[in-house]
Each structure stands twice: as C-alpha cells, then as structure tokens.
C-alpha cells in the first residue's frame, strides 16, 4: 500500500495534521444538476468530517446569472466560517464597466483574495478587454487567478510572462483525462513557467493519469482541486491520497503549494 496517507484514507481516518486546501471549489446550487450538500454549512460539515482545512470557492451564482449576488454569498460564508473559505472574486466579462468596481469591492470589502474566470461559460476570450482589466488588477494585488481555460498554450505563455505577479492556476490540467490528447505542451508550460500551476479537479479520473502528470510537471506545480460541491470532496481527494506517489509529494499537492499562493495559511 502506498504510504501513511493512503492507509489513513482507507480507514476513513480524519486527516488531522495534514494541511488540505482545496483550490477549486464552488458554492450553492446549479440547477442543471440536482446538487447535494452545496450550502456553506453543509460544505464545512463535510470538510470537518474528512479533515479539510479550507476551500477556495466561487459561487455558481457568481459564474452564471448574477455575479454580485454570488460574490455576496461567498462573502457571507467567509464571514460565518473564518479561515474555512478563500473567496474567488468572480466577474462577468460582458459587463466591462463593472469589472474593476466589483473586484475592488470583493477584495477591499468582502475579504476575497483570488479571482475566478470562466471564459467557456461566458463565451468570452480570455484575452478580451474585461479579463485584461482583471489581470491588471490581479497583478497589482499579487493574486491567484483560476481559470476554467486559458485559451491556447501560446496565450497562457504570453499572459504569464506579462503578468509575472499573478499566479496562474490552470483548471482541470493536473491529470491526463483522455489518452487521445497530447498533454505535453500544457505540461511543459506548467513545468517551465514559474507562476503557472495545474489544478487537479475533474470528474474523470483515469488510472495513472494523475501520477503521470505529477511526474512530468513536478509535485510543486500541482494544486489539489475538487470542484466540490459539484463533485464529492472525498472522491476527489482519493485521487491524491491513494496515488502511487510518496507522502511528501502528496502533502505539497494537498495544501502546502497553495498555502504559498493565497494569504492566510502562514504556518
């Protein structure tokens, strides 16, 4: 069996003493699916049962119908559960004049410290005017930005070399989820650009695909993410906990890497 963390996971032992920060979470319902345990209270209860310290969350409402209301929902969770939620400020790029005021509100009034982009849902190019405003803001605040997609590898490279104080988190790229797709270009960028990291979240977990990516890009460039409460938090954790990797690499991926990128985890 693969190490102490795997043995603890197989017993369902609460993971006290291991820093676990989920870099890709959401909050609230998303009605195309029947969501379960998606309120902040339910999420914290499940985090407590497993031993997850914190999740970085954006509201489904923030991404979809009403970004202000969604950001307020996340801010309320941050207030009611100190230390358990890192807020992803989320904007709708189709409202360009609202981008900077909303980001300033999120960071300066709502205690959010990172940004979430979803260019696919918004059908908006990641190098469009609104996102460029947001990246300028993130660069000034030295913030982490998680994006569902960064367009092409060339575009990510140009953005990451221009905004060197931004930490770029590439969603859904810390694994190989289709043996037909050539991941080497993305993996090369994540490995070589110092401010680019890979997020693990994905519903599909091919056997061996995560370990292969970790060995390609290095454990120090991989961030655990679950997409919870869309996905079951423990299901997603299992990919790391029972992986064919050593425990120090797993601990980097589970929390230590992200603790260096977002405020509040100086331990």
């Amino acid at each position, binding site marked *: *069996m*693969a190490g102490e963390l*795997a043995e603890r*996971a*197989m*017993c*369902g*032992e*609460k993971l006290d003493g291991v820093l676990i920060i989920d870099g890709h979470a959401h909050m609230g319902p998303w009605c*195309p*699916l*029947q*969501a*379960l*345990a*998606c309120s902040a*209270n*339910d*999420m*914290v*209860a*499940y985090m*407590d*049962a*497993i*031993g997850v310290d914190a999740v970085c969350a954006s509201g489904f409402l923030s991404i979809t119908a009403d970004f202000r209301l969604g950001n307020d929902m996340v801010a309320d969770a941050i207030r009611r559960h100190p230390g358990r939620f890192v807020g992803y400020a989320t904007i709708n790029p189709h409202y360009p004049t609202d981008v900077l005021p909303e980001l300033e509100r999120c960071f300066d009034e709502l205690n959010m410290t990172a940004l979430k982009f979803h260019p696919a849902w918004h059908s908006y190019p990641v190098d469009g005017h609104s996102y460029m405003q947001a990246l300028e803001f993130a660069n000034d605040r030295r913030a982490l930005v998680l994006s569902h997609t960064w367009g092409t590898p060339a575009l990510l490279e140009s953005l990451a070399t221009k905004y060197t104080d931004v930490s770029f988190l590439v969603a859904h790229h810390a694994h*190989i989820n289709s*043996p*037909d797709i050539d991941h080497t270009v993305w993996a090369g960028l994540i490995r070589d650009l110092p401010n680019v990291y890979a997020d693990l979240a994905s*519903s*599909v*977990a*091919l*056997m*061996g*695909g*995560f370990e*292969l990516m970790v060995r390609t890009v290095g454990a120090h460039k991989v961030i655990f993410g679950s997409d*919870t*409460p*869309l*996905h*079951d*938090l*423990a*299901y*997603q*954790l*299992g*990919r*790391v*906990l*029972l*992986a*064919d990797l050593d425990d120090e690499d797993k601990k980097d991926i589970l929390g230590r890497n992200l603790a260096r990128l977002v405020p509040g985890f100086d331990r």
Partner: protein
Amino acid sequence: MEDLPNNTGCKFLDLFDCHCAFGSYSAPGLKVFRSASHIRAEMDRVGIGEALVYSNVARECDTQIGNNELLRAVAVDDRLHPAWVLTPDLGSWLPSFGERVDRMLQAGVRAAYMFPTFHQFTLSPWQVDGLLSELSEHRVPLFLDFGNKHWSERLTDWDAVDAVCGRFPELPVVMVHEGLASVRTLTPLLARNPNLHVEISYFQPNTGIKVFAQEFGPDRLLFGTGMPVYDPGCPISMIAYAPISVEWKQAIAGCNLRRLLGGVC
C-alpha cells in the same frame, strides 16, 4: 448545521470491486490488465480484496473468445470472479438463451454485463426478454453499462431501465458508471424499483453516498472502480469518508455484492 460522524478509528473496508475489466483495448489506454497477476497487483496496492471481472475482448469484439479467455485467466484465483458479457442475439442457429445461461452457471459465472449502447440493442421486450427471463429465473445480477464516459452525456435509456426492473422484479439490476447528473433520475427510479442498484465508480454527487444510503438503504449501492481505465482511489476514499456507519460502509464496500452473487440459484 448537521453533525456528521467523526471519522476516527474506522477499520479497513472489506472491498469487493464489482466493476473491473481484463484484457486488451483497441483504444490507447494508460493501463491494461493482461493477466490475473496484473489485476491482483493493483488490488493489493489499494487494498481491494476481491473483484468481479469481465473481459474487454468480450465487450469490444468477441463474447465467446473473451468470456472463455477470462475463465482461463481467473480459473485458479479465489480473489477474481468472472462475469460474462452477454448480447441478446437470437436465431434458430444459436443455442437457446436457457442453454447459454446454463452454460454460464455451469462455468461458475454468477454475474452478467450488458452494453446496450456499444452493442447496439434496445431493452425492449421483443429484444431482451428471452435472455432476461433466464437471468431473472436464476437471480443472476445484471450489470448495465450504457457507455457514459462523462456526466454530461445522456446515453442511458432510463425509461427502458425502469421497464426492465418492472418486468423482472426478481432480477438484480446494477447501473454501471453513472455520473452525478443521474441524481435527478435515479432518485425516483430507485424509489420505484427495489431491484435497482447503483455502482459508484463514477457516481460522485457531494455526500451522495450518505444521501442515497439514508434514502434507500445501504444495500442499493455497490463499490466499483472501473479499473484499469479509471482510478480506484476515488470510490475507495468516497466510501471510507462517507458520513455513515461502518456497517453501512462495509455493505457498500462488498457485502452487497456478495449477497447478490450468493443469491444466484
């Protein structure tokens, strides 16, 4: 906020994987189980005691060659249990469904896998009832895999599944590799059909194990991995950390499958 059980001091789960494939694939894959020892090595790595195994050669090309190859591969292995891939082929030149199921049972095979989408058949009575009536008579668990690879796909014919469960109430039916988008559909179907079960290799709604076990009882969920295509760590961790009793976890981990296989007559 609801208090959930504090996960300390649980014992290891007695895992019996109901969804494991043996043999080669035509598609480029990351892992392949070419022998029983390959399967056992991965089972040992993640603590799985036993597995119900079907042949991918049988799924992908030739049921006869694949099913027989599987029998030879696992013949002397008390941890690996064969499941045959069946198609509802009907013709006067073929053995009857009764003869085919008898042959399966005589070979020690106590479970059947069917792939309606990939094998291009319907679950309509005129298509499958001859075969399903034989399986039902012997209480052979039927694992139905509609080929969904992502939760956004809608390949499963839920009306047909509902109808099969209703026509054959003694037939244990197990839905394989259904995703989180099936919550809305599975909830009324499980309520309507006591013989319907869910294999959980890809079933990952947040705290779904607890919600479904509380709603329908723990005996409706079966541990499966989808190895060698899918990562076994995910469903193992999901059961281990499910906020339910250890007894319920053990039921899902393996007892339910043992009960279904033990019910074959």
